[in-house]
């Protein structure tokens, strides 16, 4: 079974630039999550989708972050404009409803 795919794996940008991350979840998983993990901390949920709809985006900084899930499958997370404090690993995970979450390899973002 193919796992959760993410790209790119690494990204280095300057502050105020834009960046986008892509995630392809495990086939059949209705729920998709985007997490931000700062070095030394646990993952922090940014947004949760169930099929096409947003279940929770209460911790998404909406002035600069946006996310969408196309046709209930792939998802993109965008940051525009990036700040220094956005440097982190961005993890995508997917699951069946209320089951264990499977994580992708993550995108390590460095903002200079």
């Amino acid at each position, binding site marked *: 079974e193919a796992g959760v795919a993410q790209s790119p794996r690494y990204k280095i940008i300057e502050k105020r630039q834009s960046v986008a991350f892509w995630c392809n979840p495990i086939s059949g998983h209705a729920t998709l999550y985007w997490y931000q993990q700062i070095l030394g901390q*646990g993952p922090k949920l940014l947004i949760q989708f169930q099929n096409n709809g947003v279940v929770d985006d209460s911790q998404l900084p909406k002035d600069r972050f946006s996310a969408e899930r196309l046709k209930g499958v792939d998802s993109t997370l965008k940051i525009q404009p990036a700040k220094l404090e956005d440097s982190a690993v961005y993890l995508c995970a997917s699951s069946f409803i209320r089951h264990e979450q499977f994580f992708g390899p993550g995108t390590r973002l460095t903002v200079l």
Partner: protein
Amino acid sequence: QQPVQSPQAVILREGEDAVINCSSSKALYSVHWYRQKHGEAPVFLMILLKGGEQKGHEKISASFNEKKQQSSLYLTASQLSYSGTYFCGTDPNTDKLIFGTGTRLQVFP
């Protein structure tokens, strides 16, 4: 409210046992446990549902005391491959996980 894990770090020799605790201030529907190796994604270990059940997976098991809003992860006869950071993820019946502060485990030969 982020669940608190203890201890923050553990150093073991191969074959030794360890217990990692996770404590939440909220009533919980479930607790998930994950292990993350350096530079890698978290990997699911087990999920415990409301009901105080205990689960096991080879030499790793866990318990969930819903009254105390606590869960514990038990690692017996540790192996080198157990090294990593362990996170609990708590679900206060909102269908989303709040990850704990993490416990770094290092196993030496």
